[in-house]
């Protein structure tokens, strides 16, 4: 397709039906009866700003058997994403300017989505000494988000210093909230099901106590803070309190914590093993309500690919994590739209506009209007699809295989280029 085209008869988040004209990577017109050399009929499709994932494990460098920047961003494109933030727990850890620049350049080379590397907060994710945050921020990768995700920045002093230090370059710390001593050897949510299954529990309080501490620290030093993968009803209450108090905190929830519960662990099928663990139906309900009412700001996938051998074993030997990029939009639709409780505007907010704002991604999350960068996803909201193992990801550890989910990503447009067209991945990325 040329770089000049018109998407005919799209439905915008507002419900209006319009044509969108794209030229040279920008939206140049939104209106009626727009004309270009190429016209694509989009009747019945909803157009939203391209999705932005604030929490993706691309695994490269170091774990290329699980995922690479190329396969991960291809998976992202199929899920409607035009930007992903790559977590720092690679090998070597993304704790230096060199590694984050490498990941960023691999992203450009792949061309399926914008790749924003997240820098580690501490050297080697060890929690002892701050990594060179300034060097990463000032590198070509221009890192804005720092996280030891996978591990908690548990030392209160290190956390305080990190929160203060990143103010230098308007960075943000994304905390993986998990009190380590309370979760030694933890395998699943601590609750009625773990009591039956004899698996070591991961208690809610291990998340909530860290979140409580960190919002208070953020308030004390006047910093902003982002909380990764909120998973409990108690955490929602703490965030509600913190926001009411004016603390500058943003929060993400994963698709799986919005849909799945710890009852699934009864199968001992390690595809359901994830950190933080699947919680109870009561927690799922609280997370859904918080996403709808704005207590939770965004959905982020925590897409965590693992090779077959890391999951094809007994529960306690299996790796934590599940895929998420290609199913996130459907789960968001299930929670926000199919429930009848929210709107497409809210869906665009939680999957695109708000995460772009938190990450400081200037070219992302722009509403569909003339002058915006042409990062657009088109969704068929009426489609229903059964999730299959087939995925652009190198890994297969999706907990949704066999489930029927609403909605389908039909086209993904990344800076005016179709990375996905008619639900098929483009043979090449954008260059």
């Amino acid at each position, binding site marked *: 397709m040329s770089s000049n085209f018109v998407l005919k008869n799209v439905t915008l988040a507002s419900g209006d039906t319009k044509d969108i004209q794209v030229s040279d990577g920008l939206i140049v017109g939104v209106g009626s009866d727009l004309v270009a050399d190429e016209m694509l009929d989009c009747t019945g499709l909803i157009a939203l700003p391209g999705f932005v994932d604030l929490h993706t494990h691309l695994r490269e460098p170091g774990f290329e058997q699980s995922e690479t920047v190329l396969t991960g961003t291809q998976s992202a494109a199929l899920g409607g994403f035009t930007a992903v933030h790559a977590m720092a727990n690679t090998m070597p850890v993304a704790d230096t300017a060199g590694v984050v620049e490498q990941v960023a350049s691999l992203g450009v080379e792949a061309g399926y989505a914008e790749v924003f590397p997240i820098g580690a907060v501490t050297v080697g994710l060890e929690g002892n000494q701050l990594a060179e945050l300034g060097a990463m921020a000032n590198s070509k990768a221009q890192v804005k988000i720092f996280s030891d995700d996978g591990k908690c920045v548990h030392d209160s002093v290190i956390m305080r210093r990190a929160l203060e230090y990143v103010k230098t370059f308007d960075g943000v710390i994304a905390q993986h909230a998990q009190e380590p001593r309370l979760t030694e050897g933890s395998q699943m949510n601590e609750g009625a099901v773990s*009591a*039956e299954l004899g698996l070591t529990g991961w208690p809610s309080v291990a998340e909530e106590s860290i979140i409580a501490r960190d919002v208070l620290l953020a308030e004390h030093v006047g910093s902003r803070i982002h909380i990764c993968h909120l998973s409990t009803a108690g955490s929602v209450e703490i965030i509600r309190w913190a926001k009411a108090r004016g603390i500058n905190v943003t929060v993400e929830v994963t698709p799986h914590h919005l849909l799945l519960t710890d009852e699934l662990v009864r199968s*001992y099928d390690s595809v359901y093993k994830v950190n933080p663990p699947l919680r109870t139906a009561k927690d799922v309900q609280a997370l859904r309500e918080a996403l709808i009412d704005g207590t939770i700001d965004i959905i982020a996938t925590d897409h965590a690919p693992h090779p077959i051998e890391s999951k*094809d*074993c007994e*529960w306690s*030997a299996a790796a934590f994590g599940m895929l998420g990029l290609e199913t996130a939009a459907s789960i968001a639709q299930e929670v926000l739209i199919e429930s009848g409780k929210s709107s497409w505007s809210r869906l665009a907010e939680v999957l695109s506009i708000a995460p772009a704002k938190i990450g400081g991604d200037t070219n992302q999350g722009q509403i569909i209007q003339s002058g915006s960068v042409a990062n657009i996803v088109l969704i068929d909201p009426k489609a229903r699809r059964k999730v299959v193992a087939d995925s652009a990801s190198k890994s297969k550890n999706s907990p949704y295989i066999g489930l029927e989910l609403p909605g389908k990503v039909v086209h993904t447009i990344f800076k005016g280029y179709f990375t996905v067209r008619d639900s098929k991945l483009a043979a090449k990325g954008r260059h």
Partner: protein
Amino acid sequence: MKNLLSAADLTRDSAIEILDIAEEMAGVNDREIKKLPTLRGKTVVNLFFEDSTRTRISFELAEKRLSADVINFTAKGSSVSKGESLKDTAQTLEAMGADAVVIRHPASGAAQILAHSGWIQGSIINAGDGTHEHPTQALLDAYTIRKRFHGSASSGKSLDGLKVAIVGDILHSRVARSNLFLLNSLGAEVHFVAPPTLLPSNPENLKAELHFSLDDALSDIDLDVVMMLRIQSERMNASYFPSEREYSKIWGFNAQRLEKLKDSAIVMHPGPMNRGLEIDAVTADSKQSTVLEQVTNGVSVRMAVLYALLSGERNADVI
């Protein structure tokens, strides 16, 4: 029934049936020639990823008395420690044509994974999976209780109305969990007695009454059975309780507590005992103690389980 993975899978009727078969097997064990041809030509593998001499030899004896070909496979470590993975081990045994695998594994759910993974076609018997379950232990305990309370008239009987206290490390005990599920099915009333640190913090799905004080439980409940659990050494330095001395004082079974039990009541222990910690010598060697009966009955019960799972057409006259 193809597998025995969990005591929770046993209905009241199927549990009573196994106990009744065990009665018949006990008859065989009293004969001069303690052997049945039932499993001749069948291969049973004892796959032990964890040390357990007692359970392993009990199964081995049961298998040999049923004339099975027995292979002991002791695999140290698992995929965690970069040893052979459960999958590779299972597929190896499958390739050798195992008809049944008796598995002991440190990971909860390992037996279930083995049974449902498609790696292996034979029957799976859970001989203890992590801190989850140990169903044959629960069956042999139920058998022992039934024998003590119903004697030679045990066949066909349940444990309706009996009051059972399980005392000790409930949180980490596969014995406690399996016993709970089986005792529930067989109609007994279950009480868990332990320091709060060793009880599940979310017991709402567990049909048992919780008690922190052993002395209160002994005076408040007309107990028929007290089952003492072994305190594992790894709990001792992890602040579950301050010291062995204090644990023994508050939750150990001793001569003074034995006096509070009615004469017909029994004291059980799955072994091996820490004498002087959870149980004292007076109790362990008293006539109310069933420790050695449990060991004896273990063989009969395991024969019954193997028979129920492997003998195909089940006819009473095979015995």
